[in-house]
């Protein structure tokens, strides 16, 4: 059986979804870009890090330090990776969301 996990917050969901989409290319800047471009809201980089660190503390993601690149003025990246535990939590959130929205698509679009 799966362990009991507290439900994910909305921003946590956005961050985890970005990790899924980005795969190996997930680090601070790309996660933020995904959220900005898809969800259409500007986010402080510190918010991304705070959330990712919280998720890491819960055992949902893990991070590793990458290689320095010229574009970043010789600074390194901190890459993040979704762990199975986090994947389960995301899936649960997605299931709950899709169950709740099933059959409501037209209605929801009509809400403007």
């Amino acid at each position, binding site marked *: 059986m799966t362990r009991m996990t507290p439900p994910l917050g909305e921003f946590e969901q956005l961050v985890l979804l970005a990790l899924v989409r980005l795969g190996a290319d997930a680090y*601070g800047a790309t996660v933020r870009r995904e959220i900005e471009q898809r969800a259409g809201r500007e986010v*402080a*980089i*510190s*918010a991304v890090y*705070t959330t990712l660190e919280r998720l890491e*503390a819960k055992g949902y993601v893990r991070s590793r330090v990458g290689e320095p690149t010229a574009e*970043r003025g010789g*600074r390194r990246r901190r890459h993040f990776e979704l762990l199975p535990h986090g994947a389960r939590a995301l899936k649960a959130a997605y299931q709950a969301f899709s169950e709740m929205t099933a059959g409501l698509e037209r209605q929801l679009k009509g809400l403007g």
Partner: protein
Amino acid sequence: MRIALPLRVIRAVTPAVNREFVVGDTLERVAEIERESGERAAKSWLRREMWRVVVRAPRDRFGAESRIQGAQRMNTSGFFESIGRDFRHALRTLPRRPAFTVAAVLTLALGIGATTAIFSVVYSVLIKPLPYPSSGELVRIRHSATVVPEDLGSSGSMYFTYRAENRTLAELGMWSDGGETLTRTDGTERVRSLRATYGLLQAIGVQPARGRWFTEGEHAPAAEDPRPVILSYGFAQSRFGSDAAALGQELLINGRQSQVVGVMPRDFRFLDMSPQFDIIVATRLDAARETIGNFNLQALARLKPGVTPAEAEADLQRMVPMWLDAWPIIQGFSATKEALANWRITPVVRGLKDDLVGGVASALWVLMGAIGAVLLVACANIANLMLVRADARRQELAVRAALGAVPARIARELLVESLVIGAVGGVLGLALAYGGLELLVATGPSNLPRLEEIGVYWPVLAFTVAVSLVSTLAFGSITALKYALNVDMSAFGGARGSSASRERSATRSVLVVVQVALALVLVVSAVLMIRTFQALRDVNPGFADPETIQTVRTWVPNDSGGPVRFTRLQHDMLDAIAALPGVTSAAFTSTLPMEGAPFNNNALVIVEGRPVAPGTTAPPRRVKLVSPGYFETMGTRIIAGRDIAWGDLETGGRVALISEEFAREFGPEPTDALGKRIRSPVDTDDWREVVGVVQSVKEDALYQAAPSLVYFPAFMEKAFGNDVFGAGTVSFVVRSDRTGTATFTNEIRDAVWSRSRDVPVALERTMQSLYATSLARTSFALVMLAIAGAMALALGVIGIYGVIAYVVSQRTREVGIRMALGAQSGQVRTMFLRQGLVLSATGVVIGLVAALVLTRFLSSLLFGIGPTDAVCYVAAIAVILAAAALASYLPARRASAIDPVETLKAE
């Protein structure tokens, strides 16, 4: 792209563990946006990002810590949210009390700004070590003598004796500053030079940025060309594009082949040389030709480690008799060695920094004291404001405390409010300090040494910010906190004058008295400077309408064929200048009034029939060579006799004019001097007849005595030991309405060059600028003290107003009752007015005593009045009392307008 600041802010607020990644991510995103939407969009995004990060920062940071500690995150975030609320609350409510907020913020800003600016100056000029290695070992060597009032200077013969015989000096060098003629492909140019003997650069110890110092061999009298030259960094940049390109370049200096062997560092300055040198050339002293006379060099030395200036001075004094024995007297000079010994030439050794800043030290310390007093007044004022404010909120706070507000919460709110005031005041103060310093450096007297080293000195800024903030916090929050903790029930009943409020009122009264006393000291100082300035303006400088006299200096080349030919050339150039449109008259002279040391010339002058006592010499006089028409052009009155004529020059220039000071030695009437004959003590000289006496001229400075002057013709036969004598460098003085315009100076230059292309033209100044320079020291002190005085006065007035206004508000009911019982509004007004004046009068008495003691330090800056000048004190007291009366009258009038019915109804 300017992204440095926002990026730095983001970096600063990010926890260290994530800094590298966050900055990297940010840079990456900025680059991305710049590619997609351009630089402007990227910049704007970065600014927004900065604010987003900053606003989130406390939550993110402490959130992270609480996770580590496993504490409950919600609580800390609650704390920061509520402190944010306090800040917003303060920002919202402070503008609603503009009088209090503006007064507090301005007081802080003025206190922080002025103190930081002035102390930065004091630090840069007086305290900071000179920018040379182990600069504490550097000393200046001067020579005093009975025949000259100031420094006699040093001679080449001393150089050799001192270097050979001393036991206390690690290195010794001498120099003179002057100009050299630089020949370029497109003409000639005059450059400022430092002429250094061997040992000067070695003593200073600053290595060139490129290349090397001169070697000892390059100073040898017979050293071969090319002559070595070292450039200033700026000169190398402007002529060769860079210091590297300058190295090894060849220059034609004074017609001799020279080669650049070094370039000094960018920030190297040679003492207070003004303007600084363009080039350093190697002086070649020849021991075989040196004599005792001719003190035309300056000396500095580096002491051996552990040696004090006093020990070095004793060592040098020991060498003076050896020096007198060892060297011959200058040829043709009639004085004997015995007479020279009676000059009592005595070496004076002082630390280089003391020597450099000695003249302004007292003035700067006075300013520092004045500004310190302003800071005290500012702190007193803030304390006062905070006390008044705390009192005003007593009721509100008591109610809130009674309704169950946590005392800590109230205290925090007050603390945050003080912090907001402190922060805004601090930022304004910093801006003020920077602006003030810019202004100071721009308008400061050019003779303020080390002017270019002045900058905001951070520890001072930190200190003043701390002092002001502490006074805000201490008097504001702590008092308020006391209210919050001890619920003062009497507050509910309104202001029935508890004993606590009387105590606070006494504290405030003491603060006001202190403020008034300090303000009086500063206003007295300012008025003293105003009177000094007026006295100086009233001094007759000995020339008229300086704003319409244009001056330019020229140098005839060394190979121009001697005085006969170059004087003819100068005469030709003068004719060309006089023919320019708009010129009323023109002349030339070896030295301009107030021009300063390099061109001044003192010489021994003897009078026919007045024998010099054995073992002494005739007193030296200031000597100038002038062309005919000089006095007319300058507007200097000839009070007896006549001017020099061109005919006099043609017949060997056997005439002279003397100043009033000299003429007085011959009798009470100026005409008594006419017909007397004078010359230098060289026996081969011809006598010259005094044909005229002219009014006193303030040759040195307005505040110095006019010297005893001799005006010789610009050309003379058999004078100063020479067969023919003239001045190779002269300043043309031109009287015209067009003075000061660029076209006019260009025309003068062209007029000079129409007679010879080889004559450098420089130092194009008006007499007005020389005159203003002479006033600069006084006007600088005047402006600074006037600012300090005005600030102290303004703050003092705010203080008095605050106290009386508060007393009035506290006694509203009492006044209502009095008026209901028949008191007249005039009586009420007088009552409060009297209270204000009693406070001010107490302050004035204390201030008076302080001023009498403290203004003695101003003595060196004063002219024409003493530090206890009664007019100044009366004026200052009048100003203070008038201001105090006004400050008390306004609230007193409000009190007298109280409607007794309304007041008692409220009761």
